[in-house]
Structure formats: structure tokens, C-alpha cells
């Protein structure tokens, strides 16, 4: 039963993926059926098709992966329910990006949120999973409220809920209302995307779900918010906005990127770490889109297209490598039944395939050539650097600073994934779980392998990806830049011109391979045939044990100390000494927490206010049936008075 459902989901993914691919080429499809007041209209324009493709690509991999992964849940949960919710989740996301009507969109959006909620609480017997689910449900509905507000304002001027009417309203919105649409959309969709400070639900909800669902949520679901933002700003509002909109998006992007990676560094549960990295990568995407919006407001259309292109390229890249990494984390969970990185170690030798795939994912997310993360981060850098064409000095200066923030983010991500891979997969096993881990089933390996190949493919073949994305940015900004960006017959990328900057990912790959071969040759030339000797690592005279290895906590200690202003760490060290002498400790206890700044100073006060109001209102609920009947009667009388 479970397998057949997953299989259907898998086939479904393939079909959708193909549909997305084909449709993104020539034209837009439009089909609709109408019921009074709301029409279920569907439209597949390049922007929608691109996201359908992203969803399907990851959805397909997740379906294959699920074949193996759901065996974990045999006998504990209904696999049928999990499988059908999984398929429903994919379908609802596809509907979100294809909807051509405000109502239709909201229904799909809500469906997506609710199904993902049910998927998050799959393991509802655990208290922390229930908490994560509740937190997610509340946050997502706050977001939905703002989304509804966005559409209501748009409806006011358009007089209809169809997207076509949003695009060409009867009377245009006044400036103030447009700003309100901007902010409402940013808050509404930003909650789903996980921008700082609306990200707080994300590190709870994403890790709580089963791993292939986490991959879909982190890799794909949060991208529907990016889709919606582009749809509203560039499509509905026609790309007409003041520069500060773009600047706000840029600042939010920079802050999300930096704080996302910083909190990720302190996280020692692999899946929570990955969830924080989603915040970071949404930040990077928004850096590109924000830069694009700033350029758009100054009429620099080619640069606007470049910023959008960079953001969208990173969108698909992040979907691929984040899903891959979540699959990797899921495989570790599957093999060891523990989430904490401190209990892994030495897994590369126990699980060679998972290890290699995870390493490819780690290299990609760190933005190292020749993988896909490098290309899109490079494009974001370029769109930030080209800011010197903006007439305003303030922005000329702010965009390079955003580039510096991106540089810091990139290298902190590198440190974070060096930690994640190094502590989990290298050196000695840190626990008996890790010592007895077995390689995961073939289906899971295929799912990961597929995405790992995509990571490298998207990295060395920008000449295929760029023209596809150009089909989206072309209509939105009014200029096609594909032929400009691709120089030397597509072998190099040169956003402004060859003279300002260029990069050739295929050439870099050739150089790296060539250099490696040269290294091997030189080693052979000077050293002859390789004869090695294996011996244990020098442990200063004692036999090396896993307890002597660097831990994840230890690894990030210098970073924690340097950035202590951000982390506000509290460290508690209790030592119990032997009675005979204070030189010998009987036992030590070490605790360390970082301050959840946003929850403590932003969310807790708001929650307190609502709890306070609820407390006051409690007197209404006296438990007496007569009183309740009286309430109903009074309400009825008041309503009748109003109605008359």
C-alpha cells in the first residue's frame, strides 16, 4: 500500500517535471473552470513553469527517496496517510504557483499550509513535535492573514480576483496603498519564506517532519513565497515602485542571510542546522531580488533582470542542494536513530555513498566551484557590485556592504558545513549508534544521487539554465539579457561585459581536474609508486579515543566567542570536587545556551498580551449552561436590532 502510493507520487512528479520543462519553452497555457464568485483558473507562464519544474525536480527525488525512508515508520504510523499527504502536498504547491485567481491561490495556499502541518506532526506522540506543529500553524496563519490583506487591497482597485485584473486594474492604486500592498505581501509571504524576524517557526517545524518532507518544505515550499513576492511586485504592480522597497528587501535579505548562518553554526542537530540554513539561503535569494528591485526603480532594466536572474538561479540551486542535504540528514537518522551530530562520527567509512552525496551537497551550499551554489552566488555578487551605476551615493555604498555581508555569510556557511560533514562523517565513531550504522537502502541512495548529479550539472552548465530563467525575467523587466550574460558562446558568464567581470564554470572545472592530474603526475614523477603505511594517530602517548576528538560545540567555540554580541551566550560550568582535594574533580557539568533573541524580545511580549486578554475574557466562560444560553439570546437580539 505504502509503496504503491509513493510510486504514484513518484510518477506524478516525473509527469509534472516533464510538463514544466516542456511548457517553459514556448508559450503560456491557460485553462479554467468557473463557479460563481470564484474561478479555478490555472495559468502556466514561464514564472509558474519554473517553479513547477523546481517542485517536480525535488518532488521526484523525494518520491524515490521515500521508498526507502518510509520503512522507518512501518508499524508505527500509517504509511498510507503519509504517502497520500505527501502527494497532496506536492499537488497543493503546484497549484499555488499555477493559480490564476486570488481566491484559487488562497485555497491552494491554505491547503499547502494545512497539509504541511499534518506532515510536520507525523510523529505526534512526541511533545516537541506537537509544539513545533502548533507554532507552525499559528505563524503560518498570521502570514495567511497578511496574504489575504494583500489580495483584498488589490481587489479594491481591480474589482475582480482574477490575476489578469490585478495586472490591469480599472483605477490604479494610490501610492500609500501600494506601499501597504508591499508591506503586507512582504510580511505575509515572508512568514512562509522564513525571513528574519519571521523565521522563528522554521527551525522547529522543518526538522520535526520526516526527512523527505523536511526536504520538500525547506527546499521547495518556502520558495512558493519567493514566487508570490515576484508575482506581486513585478507582475501585479508592474515593476513600478520606489527604491526603498528594494532596499527593504535587500536589508531583510542581508540580515536573514547572516543571522541564518550564524544560528546554524551553533546548532548541533543536523536537521535544525539545515533548517537555519534555509533562512540563510532565502536571504541570499532576497539579496538578488532586492538588488533587482533597486535597479528596476532606477530604470536600469538589464541590471534588474540580472538581479532577478541571480535570485531565481539561487532558488532552484537551493532547492536541489538543500533537499540533498536533508536526504543525507535523513539517511543518518535512518542509520543511527539519533539526531545529534555529537553522536555521529566516522560514518564516511560505514556509509560511503551517503557520505559522498552529503559532501557534494555541502560543497554546493558553501558555494564552491564547480558546483551550482558558486554560480548563483557569483551572480548575486555581480548584481551587487554593478551598483556603481545607481545615481544615489547612499545605495552605491550600501550594495557593496551587502556584498561583504554575503562574503561573510558564504564563508561562515563553509565553516558550518565543514563542521557538519567533518564531525558527522570523519574521524572515529562517537557513539555505538554510529559504530553500528549501515548504508541506507538503494532507493534512498538513488534519490540522493539524482540530486547530487543535478548539483554539479546546474553548476557547470549555466548556459542551459540562464536562457531558461531569462524567459521569466524577460517579460517581467522588459529586456532579455541571456545573450548579454552568456559570453563566448555560453562558455562564460559576463553580466556587464567581458571587461568588467566574467567567470567560466566549465573552464574552472577543467582547471581543477587538470590541476589534480598534474598533482598526481608530479607526485609520481618525484616520488615514484605510492607505498603507504597505516598507523594510528598519535594521541600524546595514550590510545586515541573518540572522547579526545574535537566536538561540534568545540569546533564553533571561537566563532561563538568572536560574535558573542549576537549570540549572547550563557555558559554554566558546575564542578563537584573530591572531598580530599580541590585539585581533583569528581564530576563536571557544562551547559551552554544561546539567547533566542527574537523569541524573547519580540514574540514573548506579543504572546503575553494575548494571553493577558484571554485571561480577562475567561470570566465569560463560567461553565453554566444557562449563562451560555443567555449569551446566545443577547447576541440574537443585538443582531436583530442591527438587521432591522
Amino acid at each position, binding site marked *: 500500500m505504502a509503496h504503491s502510493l509513493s510510486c504514484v507520487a513518484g510518477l506524478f512528479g516525473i509527469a509534472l517535471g516533464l510538463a514544466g520543462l516542456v511548457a517553459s519553452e514556448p508559450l503560456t497555457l491557460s485553462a479554467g473552470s468557473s463557479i460563481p464568485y470564484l474561478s479555478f483558473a490555472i495559468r502556466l507562464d514561464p514564472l509558474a513553469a519554473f517553479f513547477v519544474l523546481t517542485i517536480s525536480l525535488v518532488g521526484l527525488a523525494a518520491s524515490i527517496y521515500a521508498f526507502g525512508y518510509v520503512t522507518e515508520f512501518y508499524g508505527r504510523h500509517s504509511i498510507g496517510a503519509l504517502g497520500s499527504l505527501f502527494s497532496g502536498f506536492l499537488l497543493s504547491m503546484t497549484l499555488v504557483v499555477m493559480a490564476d485567481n486570488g481566491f484559487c491561490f488562497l485555497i491552494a495556499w491554505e491547503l499547502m499550509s494545512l497539509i504541511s502541518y499534518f506532515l510536520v506532526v507525523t510523529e505526534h506522540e512526541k511533545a516537541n513535535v506537537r509544539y513545533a506543529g502548533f507554532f507552525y500553524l499559528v505563524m503560518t496563519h498570521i502570514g495567511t492573514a497578511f496574504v489575504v490583506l494583500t489580495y483584498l487591497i488589490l481587489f479594491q482597485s481591480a474589482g475582480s480576483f482574477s490575476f489578469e485584473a490585478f495586472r490591469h486594474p480599472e483605477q490604479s492604486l494610490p501610492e500609500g496603498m501600494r506601499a501597504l500592498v508591499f508591506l503586507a505581501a512582504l510580511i505575509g509571504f515572508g512568514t512562509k519564506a522564513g525571513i528574519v524576524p519571521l523565521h522563528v517557526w522554521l527551525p522547529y517545524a522543518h526538522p520535526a517532519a520526516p526527512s523527505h518532507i523536511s526536504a520538500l518544505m525547506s527546499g521547495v515550499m518556502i520558495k512558493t513565497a519567493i514566487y508570490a513576492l515576484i508575482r506581486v511586485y513585478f507582475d501585479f504592480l508592474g515593476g513600478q515602485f520606489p527604491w526603498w522597497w528594494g532596499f527593504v528587501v535587500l536589508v531583510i535579505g542581508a540580515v536573514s542571510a547572516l543571522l541564518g548562518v550564524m544560528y546554524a553554526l551553533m546548532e548541533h542537530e543536523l536537521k535544525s542546522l539545515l533548517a537555519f540554513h534555509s533562512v540563510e539561503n532565502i536571504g541570499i535569494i532576497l539579496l538578488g531580488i532586492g538588488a533587482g528591485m533597486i535597479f528596476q526603480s532606477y530604470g536600469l532594466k538589464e541590471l534588474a533582470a540580472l538581479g532577478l536572474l541571480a535570485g531565481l538561479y539561487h532558488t532552484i540551486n537551493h532547492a536541489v542542494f538543500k533537499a540533498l542535504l536533508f536526504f543525507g540528514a535523513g539517511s543518518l537518522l535512518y542509520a543511527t536513530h539519533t539526531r545529534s551530530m555529537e553522536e555521529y562520527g*566516522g560514518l*564516511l567509512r560505514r556509509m560511503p555513498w551517503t557520505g559522498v552525496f552529503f*559532501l557534494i551537497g555541502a560543497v554546493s551550499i*558553501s*558555494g*564552491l*566551484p564547480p558546483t551550482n551554489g558558486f554560480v548563483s552566488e557569483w551572480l548575486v*555578487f555581480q548584481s551587487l557590485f554593478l551598483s556603481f551605476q545607481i545615481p544615489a*551615493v547612499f545605495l552605491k*555604498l550600501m550594495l557593496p556592504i551587502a*556584498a*561583504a555581508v554575503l*562574503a*561573510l555569510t558564504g*564563508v561562515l556557511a*563553509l*565553516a558550518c558545513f*565543514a*563542521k557538519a560533514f*567533518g564531525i558527522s*562523517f*570523519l*574521524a*572515529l565513531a562517537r557513539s555505538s549508534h554510529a559504530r553500528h550504522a549501515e548504508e541506507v537502502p538503494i532507493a534512498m541512495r538513488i534519490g540522493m544521487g539524482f540530486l547530487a548529479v543535478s548539483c554539479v550539472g546546474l553548476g557547470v552548465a549555466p548556459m542551459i539554465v540562464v536562457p531558461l530563467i531569462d524567459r521569466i525575467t524577460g517579460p517581467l523587466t522588459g529586456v532579455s539579457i541571456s545573450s548579454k550574460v552568456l559570453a563566448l558562446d555560453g562558455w*562564460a558568464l559576463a553580466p556587464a561585459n567581458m*571587461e*568588467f*567581470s*566574467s*567567470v567560466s564554470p566549465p*573552464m*574552472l572545472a577543467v*582547471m*581543477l581536474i*587538470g*590541476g*589534480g592530474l*598534474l*598533482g598526481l603526475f*608530479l*607526485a609520481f614523477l*618525484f*616520488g*615514484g609508486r*605510492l607505498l*603507504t*603505511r*597505516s*598507523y*594510528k*594517530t*598519535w594521541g600524546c602517548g595514550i590510545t*586515541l579515543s573518540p572522547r*579526545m*576528538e*574535537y566536538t561540534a560545540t568545540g*569546533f564553533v567555540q*571561537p566563532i561563538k*566567542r*568572536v560574535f558573542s554580541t549576537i549570540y549572547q551566550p550563557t555558559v554554566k560550568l558546575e564542578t563537584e570536587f573530591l572531598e580530599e582535594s580541590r585539585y581533583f574533580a569528581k564530576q563536571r557539568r557544562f551547559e551552554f545556551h544561546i539567547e533566542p533573541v527574537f523569541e524573547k524580545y519580540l514574540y514573548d511580549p506579543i504572546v503575553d498580551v494575548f494571553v493577558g486578554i484571554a485571561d480577562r475574557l475567561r470570566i465569560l466562560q463560567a461553565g453554566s449552561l444557562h449563562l451560555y444560553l443567555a449569551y446566545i439570546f443577547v447576541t440574537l437580539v443585538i443582531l436583530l436590532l442591527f438587521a432591522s
Partner: protein
Amino acid sequence: MQPLIQAVSLVAAQVIVLLVVSPFLVGLIRKVKARFQCRRGANVFQPYADLAKLFRKQPVISTSSSWVFTATPYILFTSTLAAGLLVPTFTSQTPLNFAGNIIALVYLLAIGTFFLILAGLDTGSAFGGMGSSREAIVASLTEPAMILSIFAIALTAGSTNLSTIVHKTALLEGIVTDPSPYLMALAALFIVALAETGRVPIDNPATHLELTMIHEAMVLEYSGRYLALIEWSAGLKLAVFLSLIANVFAPWGIGTTPTPAAMGIGLVVYLVKISGLAVLIGTLECMFAKLRLFRVTDLLGVAFILALLGLLFFYILRS
């Protein structure tokens, strides 16, 4: 076919120059330091002999390590060499200029950093982890400064591709009347270079004291040909940064035309320039003590602010 052959031979020439020059730079710095310490010091060509010997030695591989440990020296070697090919050395007509700009250079070097950190963790020794952990923080703080400082220069030259910057500067195109942005960027980049190549006052390549070492701690378990490749790569990285500084800030004399004569002169001038810089580094190493790890952040913070000021000055001077 003619341009292709020319390009390939230029690339080959650059590879050979970089590989041959790098051990010399290491030897030269050691010699300068020895002289300051009133020692005669080893011959400047000693690092070549060291490398040859290391290549012939049988490597010992830790039983607790994985393939990452043995692959890292090759990955480090190739990524550093690839970065070196993006930097102009004796000619500004670098054929691989199109393959990447300064961002690509930074990320190529980051590949090496990433795998070295992994290799440090892979042996299971606490020393390796210590080195990796420290390398991670030093690298995090250097890269933003590096990107900003190069950007300040890139604005003046109208390019982020290194060879184009150097070529234009050498031909005196797009030079600002006031050199202050350049000077600030130079100071920032010099600090960055010291940090990236593991030099005093950030790291000390001559120490094996666990309290202070960073790079040496990561590579502590390496031996034989693996160590040789790592040492060579460290030299290469030094050569990359010295070439970068020498040619971006003082490109004069570099071959700007693809004629043998211009390139010959370019090569001689290049060797003089980077040797001068190596002597400067050696001198600095004798003048300063190594900083405590948590004071390094202040120094790198200074580099970042300098680069930012350079950028600010550029815009103020232009407007």
C-alpha cells in the same frame, strides 16, 4: 589554431613559473628571518630539497582517517594552482582571465580551506580539530575584507577581472588623481594576505606549539608526498597573494603585449617585485610578535574598515 597554441603555452609557462617560484619565496622569507635573528640560516633553495625529499618518503596514514585525508592534498594543490592561473604574473595577457574574476579566486582558495578543515578533523586528533576550528574563524573574518578591498580597486579600473585591472593600470588607464582609495585597499589586502597565508602576526608557520598553531595543526598528521603537496600548495598560495599585491598595486614593468621580449622583461620585473615583498614579509615577521587568537579579530576588523574606507573615499572623490 595559432591563438590556441599561444594560450596553452602561456598557461603552461604560468604554471611552471608559479610552481618553481613558490618554494623560493618560502626559502627567502626564512633566510631573511634567520639574518634578523643573527643566524646564517639555510640556503634559500633549501625548500626545493625539502620537497624532493618529502616526495620520496613513505607516507604514514592514520587508521582513523578516510579517503578525504588522502584526497585533500591533491584538492588543495589543484585549487590553489587554479587560483594562481587567474592572477597575472609576468604578463597581463593572462589567457585564463575569462575563466574567473576576483570572486572566483576567493572561492577557489576557499575549496582548499574547506578540505584542509576536513582533513584536520579526519585524523581524530585533538590538534587537527583545534587547527580546523581556528582556521574556520580566521577565514571567516578575512574574506569580507578581501572582497571589499579588491572591489575598491575594481571600481577604479572598471573591472573585477584581475588581469584586466592590472592591464589597465599598467597602461595608466582609469587612474584616479588621488591614490588614497588605493592605499587603503593595499593596506587591507596586505593584512588579508598575511592572514590567508598563515603568517605572523596571525599564524606562525615555524611553530609546532599547540597553543599557537593554526595551519600547522591541521596538517600535523601528514607525511611523505602528501605533506610535500601541502607545503608546495602553501608556497603557491603565498605566491598567489604576493603576485596579486605586486601586480595590482605596482603593475609597472609587466608584459602588456604578447611578445617574447615584453614577457622576458615582465618575468624579471615580476621576480624582483615578489622577492621584495617576500623580504618585507620576513622583516615584518621579525618585528612583530604573534597575536593571541582572539586579538586577530581586531586586526582583521581593521582590514575590513580600511577596505570600507577605501570604497567610501572612492565615491567621495568621484562625486
